[in-house]
């Protein structure tokens, strides 16, 4: 057994540090991708032809290529594409947040679009004859109903995001998965993987419970 008790505690403390960074990636990605997804969905649905086309193209790229490739591209592309002198180097963490947010926004956009399109025309008409403006109709009548309908598919994405935070390790960010890999090869033991797996599982269990609570809270109407 390569770990004694103090060694095990040190390992856990190290992996908790990595978890903190993974949590940061998780929350920042959600904070940016949810609103961006809504804007993308609205542009995709109500924009002029140019905006519609752009949004469709953006969604195609983001859903059609691997996130791991997008991470590398966002990190390396500014350096290679910009002329010398203007070359900026993204901080790897910033690059990771940009790539994850752009990627998840595309998925959220399509979920939002499906949700918005599922609201019946009658709701818009009832709001219109009562004098609600387009904006009031969307914010007060449509969006609250959309939130309830899209919660299950959005929950799926959020659970996937927990696990996708591991992908930012490819940019050399010392998050949970990368630290576990490093420890496992250093000590030649599967135990770091086992503990990291338990942390991801615990994390997703909490996320699932919170999302189920939210669903229950919105169950007061049908």
């Amino acid at each position, binding site marked *: 057994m390569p770990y004694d008790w103090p060694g095990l505690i040190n390992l856990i403390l190290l992996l908790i540090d990595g978890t903190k960074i993974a949590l940061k990636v998780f929350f920042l990605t959600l904070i940016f991708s949810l609103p961006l997804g809504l804007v993308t969905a609205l542009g995709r649905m109500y924009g002029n032809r140019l905006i519609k086309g752009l949004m469709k193209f953006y969604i195609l790229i983001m859903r059609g290529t691997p996130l791991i490739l997008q991470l590398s591209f966002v990190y390396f592309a500014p350096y290679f594409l910009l002329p010398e002198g203007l070359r900026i180097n993204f901080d790897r963490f910033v690059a990771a947040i940009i790539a994850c947010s752009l990627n998840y926004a595309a998925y959220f956009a399509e979920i939002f679009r499906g949700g918005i399109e599922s609201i019946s025309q*009658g*709701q818009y008409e*009832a709001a219109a*004859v009562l*004098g609600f403006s387009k904006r*009031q109709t969307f914010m007060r009548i449509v969006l609250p109903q959309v939130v*309830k309908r899209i919660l299950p598919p959005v929950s799926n994405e959020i659970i996937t995001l927990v696990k996708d935070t591991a992908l930012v390790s490819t940019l050399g960010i010392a998050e949970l998965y990368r630290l576990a890999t490093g420890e496992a090869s250093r000590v030649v033991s599967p135990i770091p993987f086992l503990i990291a797996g338990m942390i991801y599982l615990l994390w997703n269990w909490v996320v699932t419970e919170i999302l189920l609570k939210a669903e229950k809270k919105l169950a*007061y109407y*049908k």
Partner: protein
Amino acid sequence: MEILSVENLYKSFDDNEVLHGISFKVREGEVVAVIGPSGSGKSTLLRCLNLLEKVDRGTVKVAGDTMVSTNDLGQVLYPPEGALKKIRLRLGMVFQNFNLFPHFSVMRNITEAPVIVGGKSQEEAEKTALELLEKMGLSDKANAYPYQLSGGQSQRVAIARALAMDPDILFFDEPTSALDPELTGEVLKVIRKLAAEQMTMVVVTHEMAFAQEVADRVIFMDKGQIIEEGDPGEILTNPSHERTKAFIKGLSDR
């Protein structure tokens, strides 16, 4: 006093002309029933009158104010958004499928527009809503959600919601067509009550007995035109026009 005047209204969807020169007037306190076969343009007429559709040609005035007009060049003119909104608020609408807001309680379904659009205070709006619910026989449903209501109850809430904006005229688009016969009665009872209070109403309906009993005037439409209009007893029992005769006969043969 004339509260609604419609002149020479035309509306097409693509190549399909749905309204073909409709003209009629509604006086204050009058109840007008619009009848006719499916596809005759009745619902489209209501949708044009409450601004859910834009007309291709024609003039509509609401209590003297122009809601839409057509100039000599054939251009359709609607007033600017602000003026249009004022006119819209004088028109109430009750849909066939109720279209209640499922995420709002019955109370909020009724108060939301008066508060947000009409600028009423919450207390004032709730007071009006309770009065309306009492009138609809739904005092105990203020805190219910639409999914907990029967069709007849839903439609009565929808009527209360429309009345809460205090419209000058109330349009009904087949208000009982989505209801079981036994629930139809409770909705018709409410409309009867409103008629007794001199509420101006235009009701698209298939309920001939109701039209005969409540309406001051019946308009028979077919293929986008008004074939004849007049006293309900006259039109429904002794129509002068062949097409009306065929329609009425078809109904009684069922």
